[in-house]
């Protein structure tokens, strides 16, 4: 495991522009952080709501960083991530606009960390809750540089119009020939500091595949008629080459809720299974 750069230079973070602040003096064994996601028109859907794809990205970002702080002088990789959205924030005005992510490390063991992330809207209403597990690793070049307590910092956004595009363009998504298949072309901006595909990017492509299957058409774009309401994703191996292909299959449904299984594979790395997810996709009226 070797790093290549500063946390400030992560493309996915430059796209989302969430700021993170550590609560306390930075000496707590189980760190507590708070993130502020201001949002931008290109990241919200038509109703002003963040899709579960980008929601997973910001949860993975702050949860991973906070888990890493708990693991210093080592660092972490995410092994699995579970998200559940609040039923009353899927439509209407709840859950729209800027978001706050309150993040607590629940357990720091010898080899793993479990962290909880609660997301609220500007009114304080719960939008989603999540927990994630991370494996503790020893990076060859040390952990990312952080001053404790971590304070919000401005990220320099590259002067590139791609950072103003909607998620399917920023993440290089393209629809397959059949519903439920979406691919992602790996670009430098989609890699994390270790040079592998950002965990949030894996979540974006699998979210798109799951929604495409349920709406019944090949698409990698937003689907106003369907949203992922819960997600359990297990990261099995890193994405390195691409194209990254997510393939969704349905297991059944409970009314409007469709249970969808998604495999994410790195075709350029012997089609290796990168991630496995079970999601619930709700058809919206």
């Amino acid at each position, binding site marked *: 495991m070797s790093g290549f750069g500063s946390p400030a230079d992560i493309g996915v973070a430059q796209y989302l522009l969430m700021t993170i602040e550590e609560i306390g003096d930075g000496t707590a064994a189980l760190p507590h952080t708070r993130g502020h996601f201001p949002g931008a028109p290109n990241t919200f859907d038509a109703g002003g709501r963040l899709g579960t794809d980008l929601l997973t990205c910001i949860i993975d970002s702050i949860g991973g960083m906070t888990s890493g702080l708990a693991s210093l002088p080592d660092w972490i990789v995410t092994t699995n991530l579970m998200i559940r959205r609040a039923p009353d924030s899927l439509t209407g005005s709840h859950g729209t606009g800027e978001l706050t992510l309150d993040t607590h490390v629940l357990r720091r063991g010898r080899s793993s960390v479990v962290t909880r992330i609660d997301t609220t809207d500007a009114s304080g209403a719960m939008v989603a809750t999540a927990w994630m597990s991370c494996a503790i690793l020893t990076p060859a070049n040390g952990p990312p540089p952080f001053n404790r307590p971590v304070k919000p910092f401005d990220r320099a956004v590259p002067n590139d119009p791609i950072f103003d595009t909607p998620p399917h363009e920023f993440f290089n998504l393209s629809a397959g020939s059949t519903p439920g298949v979406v691919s992602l072309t790996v670009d430098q901006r989609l890699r994390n500091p270790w040079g592998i595909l950002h965990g949030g990017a894996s979540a974006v492509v699998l979210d798109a595949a799951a929604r495409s299957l349920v709406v019944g058409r090949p698409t990698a774009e937003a689907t106003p008629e369907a949203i992922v309401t819960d997600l359990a994703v297990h990261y099995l*191996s890193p994405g390195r080459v691409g194209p990254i292909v997510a393939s969704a299959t349905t297991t059944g449904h409970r009314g409007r809720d469709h249970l969808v299984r998604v495999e994410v594979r790195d075709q350029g790395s012997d089609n290796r299974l990168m991630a496995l997810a079970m999601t619930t996709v709700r058809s919206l009226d």
Partner: protein
Amino acid sequence: MTNEKTTALSPIDSPLVASDDVPANSRPAYPPPRHAMSLLALESEQDLSGDVRGWMPVTRYTAAADGMPRLAAVAMLVDALGGLRSITASDPEWAFTADMSIHLLPAGPIEVLQADLHVRRRGRRTLVIEAELLADGERPAGSALLTFAVVPRPEHLVNITIDMTPGRRMMNRNSEHEPLTTDYLDELQLLVTEPGNATIELHPAVCNTVGALHGAVHASLVDEASASLARSLLGCDVVTTDMHLAYLELGRVGPLSATATSVGGPSSDRVSTLVEIRDGNGMLVSYATAEVSGQ
């Protein structure tokens, strides 16, 4: 094929067993009468590749309002079979459950729930197992994903054997003379103290081999704490349809209490919950989220 001497054992316990140093000869006989696992009459079969299939009869004592087994019982089936599968998959090391996700479909009413388990990843330190659930061997009934932490094999588990004779067998011999004759959660003495709060004493029937709360009984607490909250909010019969559960510590001090709170507000027919389970000292021992559907 005869019984093979391998390094695995037909598990009688959740693999949520720490690699602690409690010597085997100092422990009471396990499982005790009317144990939470024995009562469900689980059966299993393991093929030469190590893959596992298992079955659980569904009765009115384990069924939810939709005729499916309630999530508490499914968790025991998946946990027990996952433990069995993990033994050969983690060999020569050991594995214990780190987390469990279950999604259930409305495939009821059913007589038997079948689970087919497959290893999806065996890394140096983690093992991921997927379970496909089938109603009466034919209809999709849901799925489960489990993560196991791979650890050095505890000393007292080095010389054990597994019966890999082909064929389907009871996972616990006590099941043959310990039929469940009342509601499963009542039998476990799991109590709802108010909507969203469930508690259980740490009596032998709900413990694992090291005297901590059995991993699947954590799921029972999550199920009933969430369901009781949803019944109160929705005012109707409910079914816990899915759960994501992380094990944090062994629950060695009773009583253990689960507190469910709503994630945002409910919709007309759904409640999402987050659930904290704490031991008798107030320590957080597991954390979960769940979804409950009105019927």
